């Protein structure tokens, strides 16, 4: 396996760090401290539930914002600023460049999410409970958030290969929202007597990523276990889906003339 994507990935991560992307962690930390203090004072017996719900939702939203708004600029910015010209003159394939950019943003999201998870842990500890075995499922919920972000990043990268950041962000967020409600949309289609609508909603259901399956925040907050089969299923789904999207992105980008 070529080392080229790794070189690009590390530089993409460095760019995010130097562009102060990780400063959002400060905001997150302040939010968790505030929540922990507040919850400690007003909640009776549901501190854990509130902190986990709030913390994991914040991790998901912060990550989503980063994945979309950095993801849509990953390729576009390199083309606009013409930094890609010198890079693609080196012995690197365009597909390797794309995988590198993708890997770099995933690394940024991983570091960001890890620090945030730590923040949730500290807040949980602060609200006065020793950790229990069920808290381990929080890590699974975080893992699912990361898988979700990996899918969103792949989509954002795909659109950024041929579209402006504004449109790419709209497309990516559109697919994200559709993906969350994919099951409901399919259900709606099945309720109707219109065969065409039924087919269309079924196709849409299979086409967009089913983000609903990645959300176990509520269950985990209530101390429920996550089925092991779901972990495997989501992992496989995310890997295959992101892989297909990256292959499509590579096919588009490999034919693109750089103006």
């Amino acid at each position, binding site marked *: 396996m070529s*080392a*080229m994507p790794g*070189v690009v990935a590390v*530089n993409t991560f*460095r*760019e995010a760090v*130097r*562009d102060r992307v990780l400063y959002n962690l400060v905001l997150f930390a302040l939010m968790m401290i505030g929540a922990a203090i507040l919850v400690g004072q007003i909640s009776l017996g549901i501190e854990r539930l509130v902190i986990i719900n709030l913390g994991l939702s914040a991790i998901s939203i912060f990550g989503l914002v980063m994945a979309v708004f950095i993801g849509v600029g990953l390729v576009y910015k390199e083309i606009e*600023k*013409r*930094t*890609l*010209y*010198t*890079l*693609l*003159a*080196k*012995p*690197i*394939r365009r597909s390797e460049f794309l995988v590198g950019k993708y890997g770099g943003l995933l690394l940024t999201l991983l570091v960001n999410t890890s620090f945030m998870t730590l923040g949730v842990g500290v807040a949980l500890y602060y609200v006065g409970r020793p950790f229990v075995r069920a808290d381990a499922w929080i890590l699974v919920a975080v893992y699912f958030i990361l898988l979700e972000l990996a899918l969103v990043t792949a989509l954002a990268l795909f659109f950024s290969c041929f579209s402006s950041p504004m449109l790419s962000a709209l497309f990516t967020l559109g697919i994200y929202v559709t993906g969350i409600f994919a099951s409901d949309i399919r259900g709606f289609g099945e309720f109707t007597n219109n065969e065409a609508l039924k087919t269309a909603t079924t196709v849409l259901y299979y086409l967009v990523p089913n983000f609903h399956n990645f959300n176990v925040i509520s269950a985990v907050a209530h101390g429920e276990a996550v089925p092991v089969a779901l972990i495997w299923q989501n992992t496989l789904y995310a890997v295959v889906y992101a892989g297909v999207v990256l292959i499509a992105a590579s096919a588009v980008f490999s*034919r693109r*003339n*750089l103006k």
Partner: protein
Amino acid sequence: MSAPAIEITGLTKDYPVGFWRKRMRRSLDNLTLQVEEGEVFGFLGPNGAGKTTTLKLLTGLIFPTSGTARVRGRSIDDVRMHRDIGYLPEQPYFYDYLTARELLDYYARFSNYSATERRARVERFLELVGLTSAGNVQLRKFSKGMLQRAGIAQAILHDPPVVFLDEPMSGLDPIGRREVRDIIHDLKRQGRTVFFSTHILSDAEMLCDRVAVLAGGKLQGVGAPNEIVSVEISGMEILFELREGEPLPQALAKAVAIGPRYRLEVPESELYYTLDRLRGCEARILSITPVRPTLEDYFIRIVGREQTAVHAVEGMAR
């Protein structure tokens, strides 16, 4: 026999223009050219002639509509070709959050050097382009000239046998231009092929073994600078001084005063007649030089012809 350094055959590039009704505009038209190993080759042409398009095609940034090109026998589609080339784009822009040292280190990583070799190379090339003291400064604080130097360093960092430079002197002060000329001379001494585009004709005349002139996307001429401008003398230039207080004789009225001296250009057939006149007024003759057409004259003639042709075609279309 080894393959030519660069072999271009019928390279053509059309771009779509217009939003709703797309039309194709030809940016490069059937370019066929060969550059030998070790040559410094100048690619001349006015803005919009197709120079940058050619360089982008050769470096794989855009794809040809038709035609092929090979660098050292390898097709431009082949990623391995990129190991043999270095490229400086026109007005280069780099990751401005990196320092010059980090930038070169980043690019060196694509050539699989060991960490020690990479560090040594980075320092060597920073020194070569005069950026050692600015090595730890972020590129966002660099001037245009400094960016150009960093760009040249990244293009030759991995000792590529073929170097493509798009307007390498652009944005540089006279000292910077001199340094770039020295670098190109060094590359030639090392046996590398340098293919560079420029519209600074004196640089091309000074540096190039051969030049090609491009106008309107079409190749207008290729050859050694002195070959393509012809060796024919177009006149004689006489530099002279008159005695103090002596007025300029009427017969020499065409002479142009340059401080205390005069410069006069006459046809070769009138040289001796003019010299007699100068002797008659006891002028001091400082120099007599044959006037040959310069590359600039050739360039302007070619480009002017092409532009006239374009205007004629546009006129007919109307």
